[in-house]
Every structure is written in structure tokens, then in C-alpha cells.
């Protein structure tokens, strides 16, 4: 199981890559494995305003629907169109090709409050 050091993490198993005031968001290796085969992803439209902690979309496996939560507040700048036709990319490449949205953050400090890789790994160990 992977926990890239350069990323930040949430308790709901999203990861964030911070590039100045842009946050790239996806779900973690732990999350994709727990979900099983991803068959559908519903993402917000570009321009949608998101609030940290609120659900912004859904990732569906064969059996279940899971909400995805905004790790930070801001405006959706870009969404990953590849996931429309090939949602399974989230399983095979959760941290790279499986990125979901990019948020132009309204408060970059929110990203600093997120967990680092070690803290997230400890959380996973507790949950397992």
C-alpha cells in the first residue's frame, strides 16, 4: 500500500497535492482497494464552489456508492475527463492518472491542516 510522502491526506481517504494555491485531489490507495472495482465517478462541474468537509461527488464500485469530500474550500478549476470512460484508472493509478479534480483554494492554510503521510498511515493502521 502506498502513501506518497509529498501528499497531504484526509480522514475520509482523499489525498491532496498542493501546487501554490491549486489543490489536486483524488482518493488514496487504501480507499480504492476498499472500494473494489470502480465503475462510475460523478464529479462537479468546473466553476462549482466547494466547501471543505462537504461531499463534492461520488465514486461508485460495483456494489456501493461512496461520497467524496472536499479536503479544502475553493472553486473547481479542472476535472479529470478520463475518468468518465475509464473510471478503473482510480484503481490502477489512484495518486497519478486517477486524480479527480483541481481546486483553486480560497484559503491555502486549510491544506496545511491536513495529515501528512505518516499520520495517515497511522490512521489506516488503527482502522485495519
Amino acid at each position, binding site marked *: 500500500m502506498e502513501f506518497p510522502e509529498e501528499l497531504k491526506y484526509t480522514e475520509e481517504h482523499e489525498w491532496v497535492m498542493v501546487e501554490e494555491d491549486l489543490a489536486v485531489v483524488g482518493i488514496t490507495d487504501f480507499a480504492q482497494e476498499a472500494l473494489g*472495482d470502480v465503475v*462510475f465517478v460523478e464529479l462537479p462541474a468546473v466553476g462549482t464552489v466547494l466547501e471543505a468537509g462537504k461531499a463534492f461527488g461520488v465514486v461508485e464500485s460495483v456494489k456501493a456508492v461512496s461520497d467524496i469530500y472536499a479536503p479544502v474550500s475553493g472553486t473547481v478549476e479542472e476535472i479529470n475527463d478520463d475518468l468518465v470512460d475509464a473510471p478503473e484508472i482510480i484503481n490502477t493509478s489512484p495518486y497519478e492518472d486517477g486524480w479527480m479534480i483541481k481546486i483553486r483554494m480560497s484559503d491555502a492554510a486549510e491544506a496545511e491542516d491536513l495529515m501528512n503521510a505518516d499520520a495517515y498511515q497511522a490512521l489506516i493502521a488503527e482502522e485495519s
Partner: protein
Amino acid sequence: MKKTPLNQVHRELGARMVDFGGWDMPVQYSGVIEEHLAVRHAAGIFDVSHMGEIEVSGDNALEFIQRLTINDAAKLVDGQVQYSAMCYPEGGVVDDVTLYRFKDTHLLFCVNASNTDKDFAWMQQVLTESALSNVVLSNRSAEFAQFALQGPQAEEILSTLTGVRLADIAYYHFCEGEVAGIKMIISRTGYTGEDGFELYMPSSTAVEIWKQLMSAGSGYGMLPIGLGARDTLRLEKGYALYGHELSREISPLEAGLAWITKLDKDDFVGKAALVAQKSAGVPRRRVGLMMQERGIPREGYPVFAGEREVGVVTSGTMSPSLKVGIALALVDSEVAQFDTDLTVAVRNHRMRARVVRPPFVK
């Protein structure tokens, strides 16, 4: 939780386990989609030992079964299997079952795992009320382990372990014979829509037989299959699942099981209610829904015709074979015609769906 004899084996295979009706069962091993496609294209082996087996024997066994069930058991010959159901007096379903006739004084029901105790108590109650003598009921579930071996390669794989001429076992027929030296029931039945077999063996032999089958199947692309793929496989074929398409509140006529409901049979439990429902017009019907836009219909999602709510999804998924959302739904009879355009409420969208006749995958 209850465990089948294979519990440790599933864990060693890396299965993800879930609580299914009080049983600790594998929901997937390598992945639902991979397992599903293996059954469609090669073969899969399922541990279904949690299912129940209830034996009915005695001189009046057949007469009792005729009163208990909705299909016509008198049509069975020795070695034949019948899909049937038991109904409540009000017409709702107690359980759907498969019925095995060894001879007219010895028959065996295979019942859903989540209903075994309920079914056995129900059968005892119906027997008492019938005042029939010479009928013995026996809940033999703990004695049996059961595997399903399904897929186009199933017969070839099984033939490597048995001298029984499998080609002679017709669909919905069974025999007793040896597999890997163990005497068991070999039934050409299944819940996947593929060719294949269900094997009923003594619980104490289950682990060894599983290992033999896994070994025999390894050169054919056979995989172990969990409950996740079991559900997507049966859904692609339009097969009912108790608790979804069938329940106490849903009659067999509503659920698409009129074909096993023999209203011209002598009296059986629920007959009067079903006759009345048929003559008044069955108010709701099970339909297949094929999504016309990207979205996955799920159990409980409401179904609309225009602005009018007309029913509910009873089972839904993304079809691994078709890569489109499919569902079984219970809707008002007026909108149940094939090719009717309906919508399914998926979260806060209404997504277009078309009424189709199952199976979704031929």
C-alpha cells in the same frame, strides 16, 4: 457469525469477507469484475455452503409439497429439479427454492441461506395445519456443504474428477455420483445463467473437494468467485433474489414468477389470494431497466414515468458484461411494457431508463 467449512481457505486466498445474513462469507477474491468475467468466459467456483437443505420424506411427501409450494411438483420425475416457491396465505413469498426429487417419497429443498430457519419453521407449521401423516421434515443444512461450478469450461473441469457421464445430466436434472472419490449430488443447475453444476457433499469433505476443484480448474482460467460477482451474474440474467425481487410483500405474479405459479393445481397455501390477484389484475410488475445515460440504478432508487412516481428499483448495478447500468424494478403495471421510457432518480438527477425484458445478457 456462522462459518462454512471453507472459511479459513477463503481467508488464505485473500478474500474480503462480509457478514451475509449472519454468515462470514467472501464477497470478492481478485475483484468483482474479473470474477464475473471469468464465469462468463471460462469458469468459476463458488462456496455456497451457507444455503439450506431441507429434506421431505415419507409416503405423503409429495402431497405435502404440493400444498406447500406454488409450482406443480407432480411433474417431476426421479432425478429432476424444479424451481419453485412457498407463499404466505396472503400471496407474498416465504422463499424461492429449488426442489430435488430423488423419488416420490424422498425430496430435498435447497433454500436461501438467510431464510433457512424461517423456512423450516414455516414448513413445520404448514405440515401441522395440513394434518398429513407420514411426512418427515429434516433440516439437513449443517450436514451439507455446497459448491457451484459455473461457466463454459465447468463440465470439462468437473469431468477430470468424476467418472459420471456429465453430458447425460440434462439441465435441471441431477444424479448422485463420485467426485474425487466422494459421493455427492451433482446437479446441472445454477444462478449465473452459464452452464454448470451445483455440488452437494458432506460438510467434512468440503475442504478437500474445494482443493481438488481449484487444482482441476487452474489450467482453464477458473477463479474462486465471491458473493459480489454472484450478484452481478444473476442480475445480468434477470434472476430474482429474495429480499429484493421477492418478499413477504411481493407476490410471485408481481415478481415475474407467474411461470412457476400453477393456479390450476389443487389447493396450496396462498392459492386463493393469487387467484384473486390475477383476476383483479396484478397491480405491479417486475421489469428490467436498461439505463439510457451514464448512471447506476441502485436498490431503493425511485422510478418515474414523467413526473409520476411509478415504482422502485429492487436490484441494480453496473453490468460488467455490458458496461451499462441495469436494474430490476417493481413498477405499476401500466408502465411495465417493453420499450417504455422511464427515469430513475439517481441522487438528485433523473436518469433515463428503458423497460426491457430480461435477461440483459443472453
